């Protein structure tokens, strides 16, 4: 070090000028420092895009634009159809414009769905942001008041969890505004009120996470799993008796749907306040908009305040308990437990694939942040199965049964797309800091990519094929319909795994340890977009097959050739979606210097 500088102007010899207490001014300054840091990091990240591959940046940018435009035009089409054919669809209702009612309630439903999704999203993101991020330890040993620490992390959690849903929700709202020729106040209200609207679920989700960690961090894993299973069973039983569908006429069905959608307009729901505020702005009732906007703002501030209080009392103890639990966690013995059983079942698999598979499974199992999300997905599955049992009786006849089978398949594939994007896509990136051992091992990079692919295919199949079989059993599908379901699910399992592993290899992020952040990058987004595109293609193809086959049977024709052509095309598309990203990913990894 520079001796001359040290002796002449050593700042450590100067008197301390640090504020002694955490006044509101000091707290405000600290919070500004935290937010300033994040904004600088964002600026540097955006600037670093210039140094990335133009092809990659262009591809992702165009995909994002296409996705937004697709959602916009799709929504515009739906709203146009409602406007054009609303009276024919819903019939005459005594002078009441039922189209207006349904469209308004659809927006309420959408706001509620986004609200609920944001709560779930924030529960997951806040766990990573508040408890697992590396900078948390650094910030905890700094002299920050708990509320400053919490608000700094909360803003990051809020922006991180909300941007995706806002990106996908904005084209729907813009399409609504254009089709309905609303007042300009609609767009202004949207822009202004979306902030308090997304703040409320963020505060709720964060509070739930802080509470869960405080309660569960001291418990052992079997107790946590038991509680989660009890919760799933409870939800299953709760929803099983609901949604019974007696035979209704078309008019009664419409009324029932409108009435059900009206449940989202409960005065206590923030989504209702948001929807009402923007819809009233659309027709120029700015007074009502201001009222609901202020209700939204007041509740958002209160929610953040309550979350801050929860953080003040529960965060630090939860954080220390969680890390203490990490210290004392005893991994299952090599030969014992479910992992030991899997290891024995994998005995026929050749090395080094076997060691890699076992390593991946062990790491997955020993990271509660990963498998707890699996529990959530299985919870969703339980609800799905509970409701499907009811629908089997109501939609037991054609064409409803085939349509339900396709919708079931779509639901399964959407869950699969979420799982592969969340868990499979980051696998290669997470190997980045271990390439000192994998790179030196007698193992080709291609073998590593193949291992991840087949691991994903086999594990996903256990989940998807089982669900497909249960769906077929519940709906009492005929052999051909069951074949179609399993064909679609098999194609999706291969293609979505290929996309996730291939794009994960093509766009790896070796600097990041947090799977959530790896997934939320450009590559992860692209993977989800392409997965959705593939699912849509399969669903459309299968719908054509079902419809052509029925039309041919009814007219006495032979649908075999048409069905074979569509299924053949889908098979080719599956091969393309599987192999192209895998090969591109392999080539990229082989060129990468670690």
């Amino acid at each position, binding site marked *: 070090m*520079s001796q001359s500088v040290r002796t002449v102007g050593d700042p*450590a010899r100067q008197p301390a000028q640090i*504020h002694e207490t955490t006044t509101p001014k000091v707290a405000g300054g*600290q919070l500004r420092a935290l937010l300033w840091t994040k904004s600088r990091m964002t600026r*540097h990240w955006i600037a670093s895009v210039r140094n990335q591959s133009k092809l990659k940046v262009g591809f992702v940018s165009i995909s994002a634009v296409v996705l937004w435009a697709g959602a916009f035009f799709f929504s515009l089409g739906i709203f146009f159809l409602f406007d054009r054919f609303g009276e024919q669809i819903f019939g005459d209702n005594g002078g009441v414009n039922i189209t207006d009612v349904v469209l308004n309630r659809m927006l309420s439903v959408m706001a509620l769905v986004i609200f609920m999704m944001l709560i779930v999203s924030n529960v997951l993101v806040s766990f990573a942001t508040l408890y697992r991020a590396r900078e948390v*330890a650094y910030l905890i040993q700094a*002299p920050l008041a708990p509320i400053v620490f919490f608000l700094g992390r909360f803003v990051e959690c809020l922006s991180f969890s909300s941007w995706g849903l806002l990106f996908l929700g904005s084209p729907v709202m813009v399409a609504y505004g254009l089709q309905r020729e609303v007042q300009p106040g609609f767009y202004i209200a949207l822009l202004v009120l979306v902030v308090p609207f997304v703040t409320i679920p963020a505060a709720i989700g964060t509070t739930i996470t802080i509470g869960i960690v405080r309660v569960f961090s001291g418990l052992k894993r079997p107790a946590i799993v038991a509680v989660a299973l009890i919760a799933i069973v409870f939800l299953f039983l709760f929803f099983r008796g609901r949604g019974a569908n007696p035979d209704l006429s078309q008019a009664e069905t419409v009324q029932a749907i409108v009435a059900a959608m009206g449940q989202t307009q409960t005065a206590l729901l923030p989504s209702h306040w948001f929807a009402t505020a923007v819809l009233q702005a659309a027709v120029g009732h700015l007074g009502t908009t201001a009222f609901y906007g202020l209700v939204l703002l007041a509740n958002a501030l209160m929610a953040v305040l309550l979350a801050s209080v929860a953080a003040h009392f529960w965060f630090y103890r939860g954080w220390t308990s969680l890390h203490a639990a990490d210290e004392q966690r005893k991994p299952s013995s090599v030969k014992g437990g479910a992992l030991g059983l899997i290891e024995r079942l994998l005995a026929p698999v050749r090395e080094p694939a076997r060691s890699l598979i076992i390593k991946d499974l062990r790491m997955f199992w020993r990271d509660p942040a990963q498998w707890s999300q699996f529990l959530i997905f299985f919870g969703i599955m339980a609800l799905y199965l509970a409701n499907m049992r009811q629908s089997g009786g109501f939609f037991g006849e054609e064409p409803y049964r085939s349509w339900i089978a396709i919708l079931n398949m779509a639901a399964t594939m959407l869950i699969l797309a979420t799982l592969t994007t969340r868990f499979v896509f980051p696998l290669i990136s997470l190997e980045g800091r271990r390439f000192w051992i994998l790179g030196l091992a007698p193992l080709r990079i291609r073998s590593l990519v193949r291992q991840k692919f087949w691991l994903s295919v086999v594990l996903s199949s256990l989940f998807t094929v089982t669900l497909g079989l249960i769906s077929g059993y519940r709906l009492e599908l005929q052999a051909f319909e069951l074949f179609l379901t399993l064909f679609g699910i098999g194609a999706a399992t291969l293609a979505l795994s290929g996309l996730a592993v291939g794009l994960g290899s093509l766009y790896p992020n070796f600097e990041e340890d947090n799977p959530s952040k790896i997934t939320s990058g450009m590559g992860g987004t692209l993977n989800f977009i392409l997965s959705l595109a593939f699912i849509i293609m399969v669903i459309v193809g299968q719908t054509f097959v079902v419809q052509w086959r029925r039309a041919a049977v009814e007219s006495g024709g032979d649908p075999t050739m048409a069905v074979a052509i569509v299924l053949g095309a889908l098979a080719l598309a599956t091969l393309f979606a599987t192999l192209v990203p895998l090969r591109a990913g392999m080539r990229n990894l082989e060129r990468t210097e670690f």
Partner: protein
Amino acid sequence: MIDIQNLTKRFGEKVAVNELNLQVPEGEFFCYLGPNGAGKTTTIKMLTSLVRPTSGQATVGGFDVQENPVEAKRLVGYIPDHPFLYDKLTGREFMRFVNGLYQIDPATFDQRCGELLEIFEVAHVADQLIENYSHGMRQKLSFASCFLHQPRIVIVDEPWVGLDPKNIRAVKQYLRDRTRDGLTVFMSTHSLSIAEEIADRIGIINRGRLLGTGTVAEIKALANNPGTLEDVFLELTQDDEPAELLSA
């Protein structure tokens, strides 16, 4: 300046730190030695609020680190073995961030920041992103940021990782000089030769228990067979080694 009373940390059945009693007065350079897994880092984490003690009390500068954490942390500078730094900030931006956390008088920040970056020889890379720094540069930047708020106590966990011999010597000298100004240094290290060279007092911990504290000469006197500090350290901790090796 550091007062530890009956401090204990349990992780389930494992006792990481067991009834630790230790006082480090103002201006002392205290070296904390022990084999891997002895409880050094757990002690440091309890002093910096990163781990909550199961029982006992730790105070720094008269503030209980659990009861008055913010006040205690204002007095402390901490340098972990693998310091966290924001990769997407430049070195100077990181210093400004630390300035924001400690709310140092803005009038003196620019001068102090520049001087510390010079002292720790990272001024020439201060406007580059930290993601481009070598491990040694990161370590030097963490030293610079640690001294930005002029701590009265510096807690250092194995600071030599990534530093070259020249930098090690300079850091040793810097810490030594600061203790003459009243800075208290609590340093955990495996480098026995460095501890022997610069420590006012040494403490040896093994299996969560403090085996002894004292000057180098006093520690050497604890051993049955006189020798270097390394010989003494190995003798004091050797009883546990076979068991550790067997369980490994």
